[in-house]
């Protein structure tokens, strides 16, 4: 079973980095969002540096939504999902492995790129680090919450819009704790550990809920 799951993660990572994969899509969107923000807000460095962590978090959330609709749909369309269901591996584990691969290919790069993009907004070094740190569990939570929506809309063509409506409300608590964690990493803030632990707990809960609910939704599809 481990062998099958590792093969699945490897295959999904390969697919994500090949032509037509979703590897660069989210990160380019993220860059575009952060790069054009100062033009809208104006060249007020103090303001930018104050709202920087929140903007980085908002951008990461929106970038996660891009490409989520293809998480299961691509495999559903060409029959690969049937193949996976016949592998004897529990569907929950398959959903978890696919979610993990999706996170590695498109969630983790967002967290890694965040400090770089944060420089463009003039965020302080310590807050940059805190934002990136909070985005690691944060993007896991966002990806697996999104996996629920991706599984529910698997048989809908152009289901991205419905998916966003379904999962954005679920992502609000993650955004609240995430932005709070990033905010708490600012110099002079009180406590970084507490919101960070709450966010990590959310991520773990999302992994479990996303796998179980996602698998149930995939089983129930017509």
């Amino acid at each position: 079973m481990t062998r099958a799951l590792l093969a699945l993660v490897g295959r999904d990572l390969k697919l994500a980095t090949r032509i037509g994969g979703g590897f660069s899509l989210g990160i380019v969107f993220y860059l575009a969002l952060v790069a054009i923000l100062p033009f809208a807000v104006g060249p007020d460095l103090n303001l930018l540096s104050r709202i920087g962590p929140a903007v980085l978090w908002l951008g990461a959330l929106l970038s996660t939504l891009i490409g989520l609709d293809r998480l299961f749909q691509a495999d559903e369309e060409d029959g690969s999902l049937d193949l996976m269901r016949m592998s004897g591996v529990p569907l929950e584990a398959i959903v978890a492995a696919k979610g993990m691969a999706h996170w590695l290919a498109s969630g983790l790069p967002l967290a890694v790129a965040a400090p770089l993009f944060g420089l463009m907004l003039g965020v302080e070094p310590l807050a940059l680090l805190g934002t990136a740190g909070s985005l690691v569990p944060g993007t896991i939570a966002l990806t697996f919450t999104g996996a629920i929506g991706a599984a529910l809309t698997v048989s809908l063509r152009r289901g991205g819009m419905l998916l966003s409506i379904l999962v954005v409300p679920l992502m609000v608590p993650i955004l609240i704790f995430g932005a709070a964690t990033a905010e708490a990493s600012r110099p002079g803030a009180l406590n970084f550990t507490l919101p960070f632990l709450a966010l990590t707990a959310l991520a773990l809960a999302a992994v479990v809920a996303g796998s179980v609910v996602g698998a149930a939704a995939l089983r129930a599809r017509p």
Partner: protein
Amino acid sequence: MRLIVSELACERGGRVLFSGMGFAVAKGEAAMLTGPNGAGKTSLLSILAGLLKPLSGAARLEDARGEESDLSEEAHLVGHRDGVKSQLLVSENLQFCQKLLGSPWLSPREALATLGLEHVLGLPCAYLSSGQRRRVALARLLVSRRPLWLLDEPTAALDLASRALLTKLMADHLASGGLIVAASHEPLGIATQEIRIGEG
């Protein structure tokens, strides 16, 4: 090993496609599903693959001692949605199938050679013709060993030489004690019991 289907009924989109379906396929035997388009051949194969829940009745696979085994773990399904990823190389596709499905048998290279397709091993599947793609999907039957083959129009898009290869493959599988259930509009070249679905 024996496949037993009893009192099976299937509903798709609020319409009952068939009901009271019953047949048995023993070790070394093949069954051919025939019937008009939309009669429920593919749905029946999905049920046999454990992917679709029947409205009523059951399909089960019993081994020699009468113990039941999980259909989805003992069956191969090759259908229209072939499960071949265009972005991956042919070899990558088959290696993945082998690891995913378990019980490895032939290597991807040997499996392709059996189907006369060894030269495409290093090509992305996007470059293949539909007949070649179908043969890559059929090569899955050989990279991992499973007793029950469920084939949905396996001859579609295949040329005459490939059909002959497929016939030989199926005959070998039956000779080694395998089971085949195939939906097809054309004769497959092996001895089969015919199961008609729908009035037609």
